[in-house]
């Protein structure tokens, strides 16, 4: 009766949202990868047929995940995490070089991308660590350990090189915050990001000057409170030093292609033929969709393959072109709904493990959604990460499916316990 009760208790809203996203994603992949050759769902040379196969396997995976006892995930989280780390390490030896990146294990015509699975593993490990009765997020060395859990896989992914996937792990700072991490960490992160962008935009000397002026103003305003002058000097100095290091890293450590990406998004260079081509074509595709779109498989930009990587990272541009504003907003709403639903479910968990995990899932999905759509609509720099459930690719789909359905399972079994 265990299985029956699981089916009765799983959150069907989440499942339906998942299915809707996967189905909508496949329709757009179909359109984006439609070629002159005859339509065939069995010929695995066709990208849409392959994706259909991946979706079928996902459903099998879901059955397995739901069948396994919920306790398994908590108990074996460390093992899963270690396996994930090992698989990332193994890439350096056994990984297949595709387009200059060693992100894949190759099995014949199929490949596996361990970084997609490492997200779920890191989320499990973090949840396990935070839900440990002895862990106190307020303590610095515990914070350090939590950060280590998050950063270890990311550090293994960066040199693949796949900085986009590595960036996703920073999403796990949200569950940490939820569990009591001091706000100062988020603030620091925000200030760092702000200084980073400002330095690139207006130059390091102006940033340094601005920081000094703001510090002076604050000090004059608050001097009656007899604040420590030294503190101001240190913070100001840190900010200025950061700005200088950003400038140094940007100009001396970054490669030109990284610099280009930032420059284009910051509006410093207009180059429609070069590196900005992807974003530009993507904007054209989305913009040409208008209110109602050009209709499924009728997108001229999509058909013409103007948007590179359209079936993977840029799949949302197909939505924009063929389904228009209405369809795009519908997809955005589906994502928002799913993320918010996950947050609500997480909050209602009685066990801290399930809560942290649920929060991690929401945060990871949010980050993917935020960065991907931001990139495709030309708001952010080009960071190559997929749109969950939508983008083509077996590893990504399975990774997200596992990530999500472990939580669905945890949620349903908690329900039983309640």
């Amino acid at each position: 009766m265990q299985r029956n009760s699981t089916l009765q208790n799983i959150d069907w809203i989440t499942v339906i949202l998942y299915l809707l996203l996967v189905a909508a994603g496949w329709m757009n992949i179909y359109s984006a990868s439609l070629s002159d050759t005859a339509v065939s769902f069995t010929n695995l040379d066709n990208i849409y047929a392959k994706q259909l196969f991946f979706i079928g396997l996902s459903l099998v995976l879901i059955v397995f995940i739901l069948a396994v006892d919920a306790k398994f995930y908590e108990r074996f989280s460390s093992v899963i995490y270690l396996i994930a780390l090992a698989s990332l390490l193994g890439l350096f030896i056994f990984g297949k070089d595709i387009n200059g990146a060693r992100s894949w294990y190759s099995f014949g015509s199929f490949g596996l991308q361990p970084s997609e699975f490492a997200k779920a593993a890191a989320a499990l490990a973090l949840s396990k660590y935070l839900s440990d009765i002895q862990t106190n997020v307020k303590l610095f060395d515990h914070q350090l350990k939590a950060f280590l859990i998050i950063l270890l896989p990311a550090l293994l992914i960066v040199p693949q090189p796949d900085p986009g996937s590595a960036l996703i792990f920073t999403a796990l700072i949200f569950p940490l915050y939820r569990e009591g991490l001091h706000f100062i960490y988020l603030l620091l992160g925000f200030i760092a990001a702000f200084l980073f962008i400002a330095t690139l935009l207006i130059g390091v000397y102006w940033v340094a000057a601005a920081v000094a002026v703001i510090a002076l103003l604050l000090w004059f305003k608050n001097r009656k409170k007899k604040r420590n002058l030294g503190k101001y000097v240190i913070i100001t100095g840190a900010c200025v030093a950061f700005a200088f290091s950003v400038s140094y890293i940007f100009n001396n450590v970054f490669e030109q292609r990284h610099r280009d990406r930032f420059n284009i998004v910051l509006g410093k260079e207009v180059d429609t033929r070069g590196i900005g081509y992807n974003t530009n074509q993507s904007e054209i595709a989305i913009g040409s969709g208008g209110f109602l779109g050009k209709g499924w498989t009728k997108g001229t930009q999509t058909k013409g393959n103007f948007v590179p990587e359209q079936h993977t990272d840029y799949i949302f541009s197909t939505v924009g072109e063929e389904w228009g504003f209405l369809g795009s907003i519908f997809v955005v709403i589906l994502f928002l709904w799913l993320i918010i639903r996950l947050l609500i479910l997480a909050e209602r968990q009685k066990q801290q493990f399930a809560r942290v995990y649920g929060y991690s899932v929401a945060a990871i999905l949010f980050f993917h959604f935020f960065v991907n759509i931001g990139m495709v609509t030309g708001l952010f720099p080009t960071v190559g990460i997929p749109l969950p459930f939508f983008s083509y690719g077996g590893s990504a789909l399975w990774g997200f499916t596992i990530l999500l359905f472990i939580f669905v399972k945890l949620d349903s079994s908690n329900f039983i316990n309640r």
Partner: protein
Amino acid sequence: MRKLLLLGLTLCSGLVFAARLFYLQIYDSSFQKLSENNAIKMVYDFPERGFIFDRNGELLVANQPAYDIMVIPRNVKDLDTLSFIEDLGISREEFDKKLSKAWTYSPRIPSPFMPQLTKEEFAALQEKMYQYKGFFIQKRSLRDYQVQHSANVLGFIGEVNDGIMKRNPYYRLGDYIGMTGVEKQYEEILRGVKGVKYIQKDRFNKDIGPYKEGIFDTIPVSGRDIVLTLDSELQAYGQLLMQNKRGGIVAIEPKTGEILSLITAPSYDPDYLVGRKRSKNYTALYNDSIAKPLFDRVLEGQYAPGSPFKALTSLIALEEGVITAEERISCSGAYYYGGRKPLGCHAHRGPLDMVGGIANSCNTYFCTAYRRTIEKYDSPQEGIDAWHNHLASFGLGNYMGYDLPSGRKGYIPDSGFYNRSYNYPKYRWYATATISNAIGQGEVTMTPMQMAHTASVIANKGWFYRPHIIKQIKGVDTLPQKYTEKHYTSISAEHFDPVIEGMFDVYNEGTAEYIQIPGIEICGKTGTAENFTRIDGEVVQLTDHSIFVAFAPKDDPKIAIAVFVENGYWGSRWAGRIAGLMIEKYLRGEISRQDMEDFVINGSLEDEYAKPFSGEPFIINQ
């Protein structure tokens, strides 16, 4: 609070994306356009331009394939520039200029890099083109002229310019349009309507099939062939006769108004303006400010008609009833009026009736007739206007309404003109002030086309069809109504008889008697028009223009003709001979006066034309 941060960020990001999507998809419509430029290619399907035939069915203008080297600048990669420019025979500077021009037009859309290669050039390049990425050869159609004459009538086609594209959205960059002549006049008939195919492209600019299964595509409508009223053989012959001379020939079939011949000299081979050589050659023609080969002297040249105008003076005087054909008027060698310097005449027998007056071209006779016409009315204003209206009924002093896109009105003064000139009513003026009009000098000007038309009207005794160049549009039954409508002048038919008799005597025993062709009765009138030019600011008289206006045969006119030879001296010297030869050629197809033909073909006026530019004093009329 902690629970709400991620929730808040999620909602915020949703709002930001909604706003961004709104901006991209609804607010800013420029993306729509970008997409269309990007992904849909319009390919034009040009129908073949209609052929042009002469009245006897001889093919004058056909089409030939030409090959344009096109470039898609964005696709130019790894170019071996050195060997490329060597193959094309252009300099490095030219190459850079052309390529940067193409870049400016569009990096993505093909633009002509080097237009209109000949078949031979194409053959040499064809097999090497694969080496030059981004360049390709596109076939197009050019005019192929079968004859070396009639450039002024046929006109030429050229690429549309910005102005044309703005006025008429049918035309796109690189399209051809008739620029002058028949090509311009009958552009829409010859051209047809191009079809459009919408082709879906991929990002490599590669065609991947029709857009929306071709529902927006249109089928081209082919151009129609046209038949001109020109007689090709006559044109070729006339051009031969006019070599080394400047001026023109117009021949009209009086019964129909069909233009048999329209020659301006010097002219050029129409093939001269076809293909890549065109712009260079056109500039050369355009810059020849001395011989002016692009100036159509028969349509655009306005000259004092001289003595042939006396026929019109007679007709008006007869119609006004101020003279009879029988009345004899004596001449003392000059016409005296108003105490001024008399208007000279030449030695001839006298006194003369109308036939004799015309045959001997007596100035006194026509001044008398003209003055009586004007003074019949209470005021010279009324008199001049009555005279003007008679001439206007011939269509003179106005555009003729023929179907060629160039021309001038000529000038027939009216009372308003003289009132303005003499500042009436402060100063009064009288018939005598305008007396030069009587003999076709003074204020009157006509184009050679109008002179031929006048001969045609006289041949018809007072009626005419508007002169026209179109004989038939293949597949269309009727001509424009404009050319099938009979017009009548204000002169009664019977008044033409003495004038025609006079013109016959000109040929038979008068000023043109030595151009007689046995067996052909020609009615003609010589003209010798004084003319002046300016050299270093000083007005200098040049040798008179030689003019001859005629029709033949006398009793059943089949051809009316005007010949005009710049600085050819007296009327029958050049113009008369040429007219005689043209008439015989047209009526008989062969020439009996070999002596006359040799004289004309071998004769040259180049020395005469060089005089004003020699910088030395020269003698005229020798």
